[in-house]
């Protein structure tokens, strides 16, 4: 048996080779653009040594673990609260951006185009930039943090959910329609269950992203793991930094696990 025969003999489109070349060239150009920059900071060596040495002795004193637990709980709470706002924005948004409940063609087109543009704009701005903008208007309080996550995530969920609701098999929907179901009933008995499998996983993935976003709300001065990390770094308490990072990693892994459980049990 010759191995040559086993390689899939797919024709390689010219576009793909050109693209690969383009990407490599772009990367090399970006390297060239920063080639002259001095990279290692002054006093970098000793800081790296301290940072790595402390990895072997993370702070696991009971007092500090309590602080870590509190910060972890706060970060998780910001993430969940932000996601609840995101769903409040995203679910109605999905109905508007997909137009599945609107019978009249012209009204549907207006809704789809208008909300598509609106959500694209809301989504383009990073959640921490949202946090900065909301800070100016709402002041430094938890609501600013929650909305900073809720608004851009809601816009993303609206679009993903909206596209999924449209991208379901035609036949069950037609059958429901011929049994006399209205658009709302077709949504409930057809589109939603047909799209549910992929969406449950997606929403948990968004929750995982929200955890990371919530962890850095210290960006605008709100509490949580990010603030603790920032404080520990400022005090050069590297052994605390590692404990806090471990808590963040565990939190993300936990969300991943719960997601897997829930999907296996309820949607699959």
């Amino acid at each position, binding site marked *: 048996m010759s191995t040559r025969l086993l390689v899939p003999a797919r024709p390689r489109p010219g576009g793909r080779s050109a693209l690969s070349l383009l990407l490599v060239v772009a990367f090399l150009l970006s390297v060239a653009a920063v080639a002259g920059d001095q990279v290692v900071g002054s006093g970098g060596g000793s800081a790296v040594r301290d940072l790595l040495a402390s990895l072997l002795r993370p702070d696991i004193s009971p007092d500090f673990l309590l602080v870590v637990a509190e910060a972890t709980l706060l970060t998780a709470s910001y993430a969940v609260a932000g996601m609840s706002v995101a769903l409040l924005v995203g679910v109605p948004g999905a109905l508007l951006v997909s137009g599945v409940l609107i019978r009249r063609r012209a009204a549907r087109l207006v809704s789809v185009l208008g909300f598509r543009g609106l959500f694209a704009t809301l989504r383009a701005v990073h959640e921490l930039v949202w946090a900065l903008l909301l800070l100016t208007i709402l002041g430094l309080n938890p609501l600013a943090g929650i909305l900073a996550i809720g608004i851009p995530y809601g816009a993303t969920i609206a679009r993903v959910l909206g596209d999924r609701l449209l991208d379901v*098999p035609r036949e*069950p929907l*037609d*059958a429901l329609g011929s*049994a006399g*179901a209205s658009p709302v*009933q077709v949504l409930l*008995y057809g589109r939603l*269950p047909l799209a*549910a499998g992929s969406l449950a996983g997606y929403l948990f993935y968004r929750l995982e992203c929200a955890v990371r976003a919530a962890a850095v709300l210290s960006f605008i001065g709100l509490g949580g793991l990010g603030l603790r990390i920032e404080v520990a770094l400022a005090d050069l308490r590297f052994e605390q930094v590692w404990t806090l990072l471990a808590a963040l990693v565990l939190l993300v892994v936990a969300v991943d696990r719960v997601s897997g459980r829930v999907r296996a049990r309820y949607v699959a």
Partner: protein
Amino acid sequence: MRSPEAPSTEHAVVLCAATVAYGTRTAVGPLTLTIPRGQRVALVGPSGAGKTSLLRLLAGQLAPSAGQVSVGGRDLARLRGRRELPALVGLLPQQLDLVPQLSVKHNVQAGALGRWGVLRSLGALVLPVEHPPARAAVERMGLGDRFEDRVADLSGGEQQRVALARLLVQDPALVLADEPVASLDPARAEQLLDLLGAAAREDGRTLVTSLHDPALALRSVDRVVGLRDGQVVFDLPPHRVTPAMLAGLYRLSEAG
């Protein structure tokens, strides 16, 4: 048995020079046909004979390009998109028409959506309540113990029976079925046709079904209509349909 040509005071379906045309090509007709209430009719003929177009015409999914179709004495053209239509005409769903992620219960209850408001349909979906007609229909199909199971976990034959149960819950006077047994093995096909025939006979429904396999058609209906190129070639009770007629129906169309 009543002869199909005999006039009846109670016609469930009346087609009057009805025509279906796609562009310049005529798929059905002009066709004039009456079907008395409670009669079970099989449409046979090779693929492309116009069976599906005729069924879609009767289901109100296609408007006739010429002529008139009335069901239960009402002009279908005036009923399109109206909520009375599902009580009058029901199309037997196929396997693909079910929502695999939902339970048997919810798929069958969907037959009642035409009569339910939004709140009731939402409640029936999320609350642990049962719609008695749905339970009865599923029991009748012999699937009582699968009531809460997901449709995706059922076999093809079982799914086809779930589809029939949904139609029973929809409770239309005229039942239409397009190749209801195309994806089933012979034993399950006979079982389903018997169930379909029984459902029509016991509840006094009119049944029009297309069947690719004429042997099955002859078994369970009162009347067989042979179609070719959108025209009626023969229209007889099953015992008067001869093998030669069937052979001719299929051979002729292959030549043309």
